């Protein structure tokens, strides 16, 4: 087992810089999820850890050893690819034993390792099939089997579930977590699905355009996003953003650009009359009855019901916001309702390009 450390790692493709001085640390046995929109450099980062891409500058170390110039096979890592990348001309058994065979492991040991991995993943029946005779989920399992037979120090996953249907994805999510708990190997897992990140990670690394935006425990990212990007990326439905100003004269209120006033928690003096962006999670907004203090009006423009909960889309404060109701909604489109934002659950961000969180 080993920790993985990235120190000012840069990746350049010609003149284009895909990763800018990335610093990151994965502790021994930790399950870290790299998440971010398409093209942000997640795969590139993972492939650099694997040794499939050269490092332009900086250092990557695995288990305390700098691996910049060390070939993939000597890094003691295993990788599961998005497309599974099973060798089509080999049976499942051969696929899984390929690495051990190349490493000249004695045949009885190979057989034992393959049997063990197959029983963990429930592949026993399939060992003599070719990849084309397997379903998508089974292929996915074989790809994981190929990784675990080697008993590597570090597991790398690049969007392993993105080709599966929704139900299977949820099931495999749990299986991968379980496997991690069982094997305890250090894991770096790439996904663009923030729900996958939230449910699986010990630690999430949010990336955008080659920069790391925030690193932290899933709930830490959820409760205290470091900037507007993370705030908008983590959580579904996404966090609501309302542009407006605070006034130095009355520090207790925030005025949105359409004039709607929202009451702030006591001690909001840190905002001292600046233009800011107020943010609130959809579940921290509530529909309230007439006469509730601090309420403001909104017009319903859409209702989406998933069964256990309903997402209400509203127009208010000069923008569109969403609100999650835990009960069946009896609201109709076009109706005007009163809303209240939980003052303790408000977030504030600078209204500049960086959109940093304002700490109060």
């Amino acid at each position, binding site marked *: 087992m080993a920790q993985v450390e990235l120190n000012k790692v840069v990746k350049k493709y010609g003149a284009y810089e895909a990763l800018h001085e990335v610093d990151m640390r994965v502790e021994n046995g930790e399950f870290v999820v790299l998440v971010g929109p398409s093209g942000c450099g997640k795969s590139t980062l993972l492939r650099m850890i694997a040794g499939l891409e050269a490092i332009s500058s900086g250092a990557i170390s695995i288990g305390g050893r700098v691996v910049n110039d060390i070939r993939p096979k000597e890094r003691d890592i295993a*990788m599961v*690819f998005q497309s599974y990348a099973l060798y089509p001309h080999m049976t499942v058994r051969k696929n899984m034993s390929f690495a051990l065979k190349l490493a000249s492991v004695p045949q009885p040991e190979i057989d034992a390792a393959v049997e063990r991995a197959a029983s963990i993943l429930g592949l026993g029946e399939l060992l003599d099939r070719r990849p084309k005779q397997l379903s998508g989920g089974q292929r996915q399992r074989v790809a994981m089997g190929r990784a675990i037979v080697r008993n590597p120090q570090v597991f790398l996953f690049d969007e392993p579930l993105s080709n599966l249907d929704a139900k299977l994805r949820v099931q495999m999510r749990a299986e991968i977590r379980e496997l991690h708990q069982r094997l305890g190997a250090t894991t770096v897992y790439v996904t663009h699905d923030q729900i996958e990140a939230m449910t699986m990670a010990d630690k999430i690394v949010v990336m955008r355009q080659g920069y790391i935006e925030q690193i932290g425990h899933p709930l830490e990212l959820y409760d205290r996003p470091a900037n507007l990007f993370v705030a908008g990326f983590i959580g579904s439905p996404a966090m609501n953003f309302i542009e407006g100003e605070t006034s130095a004269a009355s520090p207790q209120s925030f005025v949105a650009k359409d004039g709607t006033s929202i009451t702030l928690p006591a001690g909001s003096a840190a905002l001292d009359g600046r233009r800011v962006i107020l943010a609130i999670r959809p579940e921290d907004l509530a529909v309230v009855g007439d006469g509730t203090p601090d309420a403001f009006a909104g017009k319903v423009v859409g209702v989406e019901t998933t069964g256990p909960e309903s997402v209400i889309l509203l127009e208010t404060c000069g923008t569109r916001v969403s609100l999650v109701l835990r009960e069946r909604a009896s609201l109709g489109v076009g109706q005007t309702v009163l809303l209240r934002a939980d003052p303790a659950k408000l977030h504030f961000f600078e209204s500049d390009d960086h959109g940093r969180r304002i700490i109060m």
Partner: protein
Amino acid sequence: MQDRRRTLVISLPVALLVLVAVFPFLWMAVSAFKPLAQLYTIPPRWLPDPPTLVNFKTVLFESNIPRYFVNSLIISIGSTSLALIFAIFAAYGFARFDFRGRSAALAFVLIGQLLPTATVIVPLYIVLNYLGLINTYLGLILVYLILTLPLSVWMLTGYFRGIPKELEDAAIIDGASHLGVLFRISLPLVSPGIIAVALYSFVATWNEFVFALSFATEKEMKTLPIGLAEFSTEFDTDWGAVMAASFVMTLPIALIFLVMQRMFVSGLMSGATKG
């Protein structure tokens, strides 16, 4: 009704095509078993009556054809093997490695193919003569590379490009070297391409005439296509023997196609990825 009409629309041209393609071959096969007198009758006789093996006797026991057959075999197999070895490495390089001037080089490979054969005969003769390779197996084997290598490289490059990059990445992670990836993963997966290239190269060299005529002038070195011409003398052509010799010459090609046809496995790649 619709279906039957569509079947007709498709099968009629196909039948026509097969007829045009197969008729000369059939005529050759049938003529090879005819006695001399029946070859010239008007109207033509379709079937030999009675069939005779005299033409084959002439070809197999009274001519140089067996020797030429062996020559052709050595030269075609030699040059096909050599072309395959070169083409595999060249094509893999073109398909997988990003180096300066790659596309220019790939285009340049084909330019050789565009030159008319006649333009290279004299320069080649001078070079081969200088190297002492006129009238040797090696001489023709090397010359035939000029003929077959460009297209072989192009075809195989396409096949190699069709292999998902992630497969090779996975093999590298599993601990394979670059050569290991080529031989254990990529090569087995392009075997339909290898078979196609081998067939193409074998057929092209087996039938080649102009180079063989120019560079293999001695009796011991001649190949089958040249040998066929020996049945024509100044005054007379022994058509029966020509047909029998052609039959002998066609046989290996037909056999190879029959055997290989089953090896053109389609969908060898399926299962590698999600699809």
